[in-house]
């Protein structure tokens, strides 16, 4: 019986630690300025239309959405920051199926 209790305590401690680490590492500035009533954003603020962003993972295994030590252009523009980050992922019907820009008319 006692080993079981220890196991449960260990699991809960691990979960609690994981949550604390997640909060500590998550960029709290994200989604500080939602776009009220902004056309394409409605109901879509949390999605990532910016393409794949392999910035590693958080301690709890969740994917990280920014780079701590940017080197390339892509990493620089998606570097971790304390600045306000504004989600903006509109649905644009005239984009190409792969998300590319349509040719000009």
């Amino acid at each position: 019986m006692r080993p079981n209790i220890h196991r449960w305590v260990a699991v809960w401690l691990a979960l609690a630690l994981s949550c604390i680490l997640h909060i500590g590492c998550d960029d709290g500035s994200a989604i500080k300025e939602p776009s009220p009533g902004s056309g394409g954003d409605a109901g879509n603020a949390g999605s990532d239309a910016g393409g794949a962003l392999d910035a590693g993972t958080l301690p709890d295994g969740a994917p990280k959405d920014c780079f701590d030590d940017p080197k390339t252009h892509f990493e620089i523009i998606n570097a971790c920051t304390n600045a306000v980050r504004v989600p903006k992922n509109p649905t644009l019907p005239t984009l190409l199926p792969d998300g590319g820009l349509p040719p000009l008319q």
Partner: protein
Amino acid sequence: MRIRMGIWGLFATVGVALLVATRADAANGDPCAALTDEDNGVPSIYIENGDTQEPLVKKLGKLLMQSSTKLRVFYRNRPTCNIRNDLFSGAQMVTVVDGTTARPVRYIPADPAFDPASAAPTCTVPDTPPAPPIALGIGATYLSSCPQTPAQPADVGVFDGPVQAYGFITNKNSSQVAITAEEGYLAYGFTEGGGEAAPWVVQNLRFKRGNTASTTLTMSAAIRLLPTQMKAAPDSGTSEAIITSVVNSNAPEATIGILGTELYDQRRADIKLLAFKSFGQRFAYFPDSTSTSFDKQNVRDGHYLPWSPTPYIAKVTRGATTIADPNARRFHELVMGTRAGDDVDGLPQVVGSGLVPTCAMKVTRAGDGADLALYDAPAPCGCYFEKNVPQGMTACTACTVGDDAACNGGKCRRGFCEAR
């Protein structure tokens, strides 16, 4: 008796006011070479600058006019590619009209009460040469974005200046907060019914500058368009005209324009700047760390992409890499914060004008729309910049040991310990 004195006093007051007004009118519009009520013996420099650079020219120009080594600045706002053309062809300061937009020459008066936030008085230049040489051109984007004719002469140099950011603006009553590069492309790249980038679907409510203006060049590059591909209302001749159109729009949601952020910083009460999400970016960002700060943090570290350096164009001494004209060289060195032994400090004017000194940048790029790369300024001034913008603050350690002295493993620069 008391009433009579009051009436005579009123007459006297009106008379003095009329006299002052008459003198002011006389000064406004004089030949630049013969200014009424001004000392025409003061050394002078004629500058052509992008209109986004006018606040800096006026601020620094006032200090130069009050300096112990006086220098009077005459200047004219012009699109960047026109400035390039003039400086590369050795043009003189003659009367110019770009399309229907007159380009008046203005000057900094000697009056110490002159307010750089107000309009500088105008003066006239000859319609044809001979006229004073244009000693310094101050563009506001990469000259590589301009048509490459005429070619750069061997005796004309292009020197780095502070960084200028641009942005999409909208009416204060618009609910929009951000715009993606894809939305910008679809809005400005298509006529009505084509791009469907709601809510910016009305062509006559999309405003832009002319195709040779730095604002248009940098903003079009940020959304992968050429200036000539932007479908908008008829070109606005000046940035102020764009502000007026955006402010006066009766359809705020569909209204959009482009503007230098230092002009936006002066007009935040009237217009709104949209956060910008570039191609490949996960979030949109303001030029500053928040919508209400002035720290240009996202310009400096690469999260906000529509920016460019301001090229300083001037004749160089043959075989040398320095500006030949001493007054143009002084102006440039003051702006870069590299001039020693002058009683004018240029860097605070740069910061106070909403521009970012190169020494405060952490990223660089080769041209409009080009990828960013990390940048290590040889003599960084990021701490000084952060502290001296409006609402400025910095986490850097203050130092009083003097410039270049060791400080926290780095060097003391302008009162703060920098990394090197």
